[in-house]
């Protein structure tokens, strides 16, 4: 099916946001907000394409992640969550599905907790944001940019497929991402102590997906999400690291698309 993508720039108060929006050319589709990892995102990924065959997909670049212009006032991922509520309001988007990938999963969970009645479906893939009952979220501060991104994959061939030889531009983008991660999620590192207590109000059914070889966020965090949310299903994707979306896009799409298509 033909998918049309276009790049948009949106101004939300002081924040300039860049986003990609794509969907089926020929009919109206349900809006789905996709929130990317802490290492930023390539503009296009097969997983995004798969979603855009069915849905009106909105992929914002998180403010400060990979873009030189950074909102210096931000202090917490909840600030991004509130900003994205503003984005959806300005775009006139109602009852969206939200798909949060890794760090983006944290933002997605915060959005759902802030507005528990707003969303159609919530999908969290290897989501940060809660303290894993067992193990810790991998600390990127002590490894290089490439080593951190590599640790996000089960199969290094998949890393190479996405990032190739890693350009200097990519390294600079990763450094910007890392700086923004530090600015808003340094301590406690990559989780909120209050979020688990707020998830119980979320009305949207949730799908929690974990790679079976996620070395960044322990599976126990997925279990914690599944326990905290009212209606959640926990699924594992085989042969996948933290970046399930990049490594096993088809398998992930097979889980996510029918889940969001439900009414």
């Amino acid at each position, binding site marked *: 099916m033909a998918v049309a993508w276009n790049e948009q720039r949106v101004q939300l108060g002081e924040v300039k946001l860049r986003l990609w929006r794509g969907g089926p050319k020929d009919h109206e589709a349900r809006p789905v907000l996709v929130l990317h990892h802490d290492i930023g995102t390539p503009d296009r990924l097969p997983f995004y394409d798969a979603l855009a065959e069915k849905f009106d997909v909105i992929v914002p670049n998180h403010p400060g992640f990979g873009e030189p212009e950074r909102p210096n006032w931000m202090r917490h991922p909840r600030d991004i969550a509130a900003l994205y509520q503003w984005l959806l309001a300005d775009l006139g988007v109602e009852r969206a599905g939200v798909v949060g990938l890794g760090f983006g999963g944290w933002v997605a969970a915060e959005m759902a907790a802030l507005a528990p009645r707003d969303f159609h479906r919530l999908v969290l893939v290897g989501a940060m944001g809660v303290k894993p009952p067992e193990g810790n979220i991998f600390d990127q501060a*002590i490894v*290089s940019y490439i080593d951190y991104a590599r640790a996000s994959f089960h199969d290094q061939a998949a890393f190479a497929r996405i990032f190739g030889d890693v350009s*200097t531009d990519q390294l600079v983008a990763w450094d910007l991402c890392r700086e923004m991660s530090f600015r808003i999620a340094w301590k406690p590192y990559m989780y909120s102590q209050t979020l688990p207590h707020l998830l119980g109000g979320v009305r949207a059914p949730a799908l929690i997906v974990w790679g079976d070889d996620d070395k960044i966020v322990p599976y126990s965090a997925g279990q914690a999400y599944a326990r905290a949310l009212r209606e959640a299903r926990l699924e594992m994707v085989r042969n996948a690291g933290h970046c399930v979306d990049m490594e096993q896009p088809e398998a992930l799409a097979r889980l996510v698309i029918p889940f969001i298509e439900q009414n």
Partner: protein
Amino acid sequence: MHVMYFTEQPMSAYPADIGLEAGHTALMFSNKYFDPVAGSRLYNEYLEHYIYAEEQGVEGFMLNEHHNAPFCMQAKCNIFASILAAVTKKAKIVLLGNPLPLAENPVRLAEELAMIDMISKGRLVSGFVRGGGQEQLANGVNPAYNRERFEEAHDLVVAAWSREGPFRWEGTHYQHRVVNPWAVPLQKPYPRVWIPGVLSQETIIWAAKQRYPYIALNTSIEATKKIWELYDKVALETGYEAGPENRGYLQQVHVSDSEEKAEKNARQFLWMQGEFTGLAHPVWANPSGYFSPTLRRNFVEFAVGRAENPRGRPTFEQQVADGRVFFGTPKTVIPKLRRVLEETRPSIYGIWGNDGTVSNEDARTCIRLLGQEVMPAMREIGKELGLRDPFETNAPVHLKYSTDLKHMPQAAE
């Protein structure tokens, strides 16, 4: 000219081969290799060295601190400063310095420093640093706000010292309901603040805008001259003319009673494998957000091993040739130091005398020769060259206490 003695206080009693094998000797190098029995002996030896140094005529002690690393045993320079305040009589206690961003409570830091100043009867020079990247990680402090915290903590410490309390502080990184420390410094308006640094232009500019002396740490002579160029330019823009009283220089100088022994011991300056802060992963030394955005492109290449360390790792011979490491007897060293003073014209000079595994006996010999021969000679050379230090010129402690500004400066940032 103010000449002071410095040592990193190395924890030399650890298996260096294991560090080399691990590829790092800082931050993540396990403290299971720390031997507290040797640590206790070494702390006490270092303490004896300072006392002995004063007896031999040394007029200043430069102290610093680092964390999670064998190359420096001082984890809190205020501890040694406190002891020296009580057990020495005349030498200046020069902290270069307290890493301000690590302070969660700068008011408490201001109190500690005020106590040291009073106990030492006004001998404190309270330098401040940003702290290396690894210090942020070792203390769980966000490197992305390092410079903001440095500047705000400085403002708060100075306010706590010099503003009548009680007052309230509602800053970006620090909020205090009541700032009203009972203990305030003996020196007025407040103890002298010197700012050491290595690389960051932002720090040089900031120091020049405050009119705080900048102490170049073990930089090459050429790099040091470039630092003064920038400092002097900012000083002129700010409304004053910088001179020797604004300049400090720390160099590695080991003296002994024979050339051979001096060279053998001077090679210990490479004990940290040629790095200023031990062997470490580049992203520990320069976490994201810590370094200047202007260096981002160069740094990321270095961090993944595609480029050489921008600071280089010169050999011992290169460092000797470049005038970064000096060794010899007082007779051979003094003429070399004269040339450094002639070329770079600092009024504050730190002698990094002993490092690595230099024996206690050789360290004491070095200190004796520095105190009795090298330092007096340098002070004479300083007089001859007009290198008057901030105490001699009674330089203003901060720009705002200047009486000689050429035009009304913009408020110091």
